[in-house]
């Protein structure tokens, strides 16, 4: 079926939506390899989903819960070589810079918001070229998900996306409602147009029902109104001391956070003592020497001040800088914290609401 036949059947306002049968999805993903390497959520071990390359599209988990690491790892890898250096010539770009097009399937709305927050961080006056080279080459196929007890995206305003994706899928009965977000997204659909069909009135009805049902499924509510002000007022609260006693300073929350971006840069010298690499790796503000300057003074010596700093950076200072909290409510930190620190409870406590303490899990 050619392009014109397909569009011919559509009324213009429905040009940017299609429907694909669930049975066709794997075929579609397989066909996407023509455009680049295809990545999507797979089950690494029971209950642990990760984004991985779909060498076999059958491995994709279409209804995967949150992945351990967010998609930021594809734009801003855990560890990367910034430069090669030599004592004779200084610093130059490393030879292997991956330039390949990647297609990321199954990105949830919170993670799409997470990426757009990282975009802001890495843009600005000092643009990070490595990030944006990869960003320009990343095609995003979003997927609507259903919340579990750790999701609080609804409160963070990140439960839904209007942009930031090339295609966005919402589950209907046996099919997905496909929103085409970009011209590139349309190219992807067009390349395998026979797998898609135009939307019908029933699809639209079903779609609306699904969206409404989903909205009712969010059980966690974090009241955001005045949160920065309340946090500022509660700067000396005992809550932070308590968290400092609990926190293991392991940095798991930062590693898995879709919007944590801080990094460490260090040089690794080759054995010839002439050449080497400048490496950047993810860092975490919970680590003891994060704010320690040469000479030994540590601006955040106490663990409680570091825990507090992380909360404030997400919820107060990011608002000052970019107009919204950098938290997207994905629930990863809640899921991964080995000490069972639950951000939702922390905010309730700070707001003076009653918190029912659960065990570490």
């Amino acid at each position: 079926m050619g392009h014109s036949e397909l569009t011919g059947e559509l009324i213009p306002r429905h040009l940017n939506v299609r429907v694909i049968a669930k049975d066709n999805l794997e075929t579609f993903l397989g066909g996407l390899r023509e455009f680049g390497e295809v990545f999507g959520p797979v089950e690494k071990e029971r209950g642990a989903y990760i984004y991985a390359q779909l060498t076999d599209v059958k491995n994709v988990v279409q209804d995967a819960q949150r992945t351990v690491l967010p998609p930021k790892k594809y734009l801003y890898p855990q560890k990367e070589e910034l430069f090669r250096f030599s004592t004779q010539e200084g610093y130059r770009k490393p030879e292997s810079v991956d330039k390949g097009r990647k297609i990321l399937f199954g990105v949830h709305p919170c993670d799409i918001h997470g990426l757009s927050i990282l975009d802001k961080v890495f843009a600005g006056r000092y643009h990070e070229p490595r990030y944006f080279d990869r960003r320009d080459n990343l095609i995003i196929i979003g997927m609507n998900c259903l919340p579990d007890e750790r999701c609080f995206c609804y409160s963070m305003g990140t439960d839904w996306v209007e942009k930031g994706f090339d295609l966005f899928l919402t589950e209907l009965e046996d099919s997905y409602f496909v929103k085409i977000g970009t011209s590139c997204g349309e190219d992807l659909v067009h390349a395998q147009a026979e797998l898609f069909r135009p939307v019908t009135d029933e699809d639209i009805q079903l779609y609306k029902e699904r969206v409404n049902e989903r909205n009712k499924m969010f059980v966690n509510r974090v009241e955001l109104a005045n949160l920065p002000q309340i946090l500022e007022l509660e700067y000396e609260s005992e809550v932070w001391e308590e968290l400092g006693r609990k926190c293991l300073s392991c940095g798991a929350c930062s590693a898995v956070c879709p919007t944590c971006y801080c990094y460490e840069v260090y040089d690794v010298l080759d054995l010839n003592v002439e050449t080497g690499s400048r490496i950047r790796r993810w860092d975490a503000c919970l680590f003891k020497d994060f704010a320690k300057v040469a000479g030994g003074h540590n601006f955040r010596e106490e663990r409680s001040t570091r825990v507090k700093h992380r909360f404030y950076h997400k919820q107060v200072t990011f608002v000052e800088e970019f107009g919204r909290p950098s938290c997207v409510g994905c629930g990863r930190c809640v899921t991964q914290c080995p000490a069972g620190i639950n951000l939702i409870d922390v905010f309730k406590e700070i707001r003076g609401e009653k918190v029912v303490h659960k065990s570490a899990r």
Partner: protein
Amino acid sequence: MPDRVGFDITTARTGFNTFPERVGLDILSERVGKQDPHKPEPARLVRIDPMVEDHWLFQFRFVEERLNREFSYRPGQFVMLSVIGVGEAPISISSSPTRPGMIELCVRRTGRVTDALYRLKENDLVGIRGPYGNGFNVDKLKGNDLLIIAGGLGMAPLRSLVWYVLDNRKDFGDINLMYGARTSGDLLFKNEIDLLLNRKDIKCLLIVERVQYEHRVNWRGHTGLITDLFKHVEVNPKSTYAAICGPPVMYKFVLQKLLELEFSKDRILMSLERKMKCGIGKCAHCTIGYKYTCIHGPIFTYWDAMNLPEMI
């Protein structure tokens, strides 16, 4: 295989909008060129002046001659200095933009990177990128009196300001410099300080806790703590900006004095130190509250400082 009549991967590529349009973030329009803000420019160490033990002055010139002409900065800004094979550290610029052609950095030997810098020889290659930070807003300072208060290594960034204002002397009112150190032997830029003591267009006051024996004969300063110097200067807080840099303990007492003199909090400018890994507002090591020391600082008004937890 799916039917791809009339479809060509290359058109798909061109059809693939570049990212800014796809997501529509205005902030991205700022992207200019493709230069890498992390890339250090090669520079050579041209002169080492071992002024004071573990407080040496290093002079650098970029390998690329164009950069020596084009590198412009404000007093109070800093560079990221790479000692190749060891790492990178933020160092405030001690030279004045009014004397271009080279960059001078007064570096205390205090960590791995600075330790390695002290092992370098003249003509060795290093990497420099910058300048970074806000620096002193010299345009705003124009027409005002200045009270420059330096403690110890705090003289390093303030020396830049001192020479800047002296080289543009007619733009400024009265200039008072207070400089304190532990002993007379710890005073940095000694030869220049002697010149300043002889100048009529700047009042230069020195104070040390102890005058070393060999300096007793010609000692032209005071003994005591830096705050003792306040009784020797007359400042009008309405027309004066105070620029302070020194060890954290000094700020507390100096700020108290300035507030007693009824300085407005935004007329007190302080240079702060934090750990930095990027200098460009990304790595987040230097955050204080919602400010990044590297881009919003290192010069903060006392008003900012008061309103940011953990500032001093």
